[in-house]
């Protein structure tokens, strides 16, 4: 049980990071971006690409399996993911925005997701890959609880980023503008907020967070072209459970989904694990369609 809770929190922290970007796009750009999780895959693979291209050493830090090279690669990967997000927006979503119903945007993102996923498959191949072949042995920290040093770092990084995003949205002019657009785009424009600028920054923040989340996921498990495809449902469930556009809600939603998923395999066969986010999602839609954490103040 203790182990399940710890695992759930770890997975949840990665879901939370991914769900922030998703909830921002859903709130500000007003469409469900099926390609968001593919940006996580993209970010994770770009980091791998940087490591391989420059044949950087693993250089583990202390008890960790990775070191400065991966951290550097992550920064570059985040940049490359932002570039991808802006390119896609420039050539696909931007062209459609305003001209067609927003469901066509959803549809386009669905096609873009397939494109990105298979582009990665084509470049990097379909098999599982790792940042390092080092293997970490979990340290027993309490009876029935083993934790890997990597996991602690992943968790801490995720939390730190969540706090940073929160502060950004609360305390900067840009963050304020983003929240305003999320509330009401026409009103925000009347108040002199540039919609194009907000859209751009939404992609920058969302893309960078997705890339980091992808790398963290890659560190704690592995890289696969389907990485994002399997994460999409938990991310949507987290964003909706948290109330669309609500950043704190998405974070709490991420942890909630991670915990429920992890604890549920104690009672149901693990084979059904991927369906858990869907059931949570259905329950939320039936009973609290505005989100479980709709009342919280925060990014909204």
């Amino acid at each position: 049980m203790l182990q399940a809770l710890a695992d759930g929190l770890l997975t949840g922290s990665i879901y939370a990071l991914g769900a922030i970007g998703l909830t921002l796009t859903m709130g500000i750009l007003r469409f469900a971006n099926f390609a968001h999780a593919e940006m996580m895959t993209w970010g994770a693979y770009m980091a791998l690409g940087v490591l391989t291209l420059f044949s950087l050493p693993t250089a583990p830090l202390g008890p960790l399996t990775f070191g400065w090279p991966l951290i550097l690669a992550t920064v570059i990967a985040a940049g490359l993911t932002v570039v991808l997000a802006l390119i896609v927006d420039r050539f696909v979503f931007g062209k459609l925005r305003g001209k067609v119903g927003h469901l066509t945007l959803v549809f386009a993102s669905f096609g873009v997701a397939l494109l990105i996923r298979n582009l990665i498959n084509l470049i990097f191949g379909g098999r599982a890959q790792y940042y390092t072949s080092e293997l970490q042995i979990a340290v027993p920290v309490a009876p029935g609880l083993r934790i890997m040093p990597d996991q602690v770092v992943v968790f801490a990084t995720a939390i730190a980023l969540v706090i940073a995003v929160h502060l950004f949205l609360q305390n900067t002019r840009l963050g304020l503008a983003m929240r305003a657009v999320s509330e009401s785009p026409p009103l925000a424009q009347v108040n002199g907020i540039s919609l194009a600028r907000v859209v751009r920054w939404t992609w920058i923040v969302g893309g960078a967070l997705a890339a980091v989340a992808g790398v963290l996921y890659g560190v704690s498990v592995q890289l696969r072209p389907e990485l994002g495809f399997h994460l999409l449902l938990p991310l949507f469930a987290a964003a909706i459970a948290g109330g669309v556009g609500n950043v704190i809600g998405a974070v709490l939603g991420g942890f909630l989904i991670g915990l429920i998923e992890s604890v549920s395999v104690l009672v149901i066969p693990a084979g059904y694990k991927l369906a858990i986010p869907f059931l949570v999602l259905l329950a939320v839609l039936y009973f609290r369609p505005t989100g479980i954490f709709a009342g919280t103040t925060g990014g909204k």
Partner: protein
Amino acid sequence: MLGVALYLVFFLIVVTIYAIVVMGLNLQWGFTGLFNAGVVAFYAIGAYGTAVLIGPARDRLIGGFEMPFLVGLAGGMALAALAGLIVALATLKLREEYLAIATFGIAITIQLVALNFEALTGGANGLIGLPRPMFDLFATPGGYNLFYLIFVLAVAVVIYAALERAVRSPWGRVLRAIREDVTAARSLGKNPTTTRLQAFVLGSAIMGLGGGLYVGFIGFVSPIDFLPILTFQIWAMLIVGGSGNNRGAVLGCLVVWGLWTASGYVISNAVPPGLQSQAGAVQAIIIGLVIVLTLLFRPRGLIGEEDVVSAHARDDEVTTPQEEIPAQQGQ
């Protein structure tokens, strides 16, 4: 030459089955504007539903009711409709894209159920030895395939005719009215939620029918029949042909499935084996490009939607459903 003809018969059976599924999707997206991201789920439910009902009884299985094929088909359709109802009820009153997310979720869930619920679905081994309707009446497989082609064609024509009637009926005009402008439709006294629900559930049932027909043809069903890529294939068929137009939907099936199988043929003959492992990725990229580029540059597809919305009013450009009060849409 006979061989080619026999292969064509087979090929057309598959295309016709997909065409039925695409018509179901067309009702949802083309005519009503509902985004279904889990087409494969409804197709799979219809297939498994039919298979469980018609299959031979076995000790370790719950199913195997050995029912007649047509009963199995109806059962599969009913189950697919039920699944459609569950996601539609949860999402249709809310933001539109919730339906997309929920259907995406049901596709993943159905795949897991197919794989894990062994007592019902046979798990990874699938359900084997399913009877093919009237198989024993034919001496040669070619003869049987010809019969089956005529059968699925008849089903497709009935669905085509029924859908054409439905979308030209007052009910169909309400569908388009909702798609174009929900607020206007609502202000005219139409209840968008109920009408959408009807269209979505009906579309799901048609997809289920396609699944059942596939089972009757292949005589076997297993989880790998329902890979996620199938959803994209079906979508590409619809959008290439032109959503909102059933003739386009059928044409799209022919083009996309033809290219898909032909590309497999070309790749396996022209590309060195060592590079073929990436061929699947290339095919998927092409499908993705087809979807995105069509949306960007040719949103009406190869044929596109006809502007005519009523059999009586051929010059009517826009959807103006004010002349008749449709009886079907309740309230």
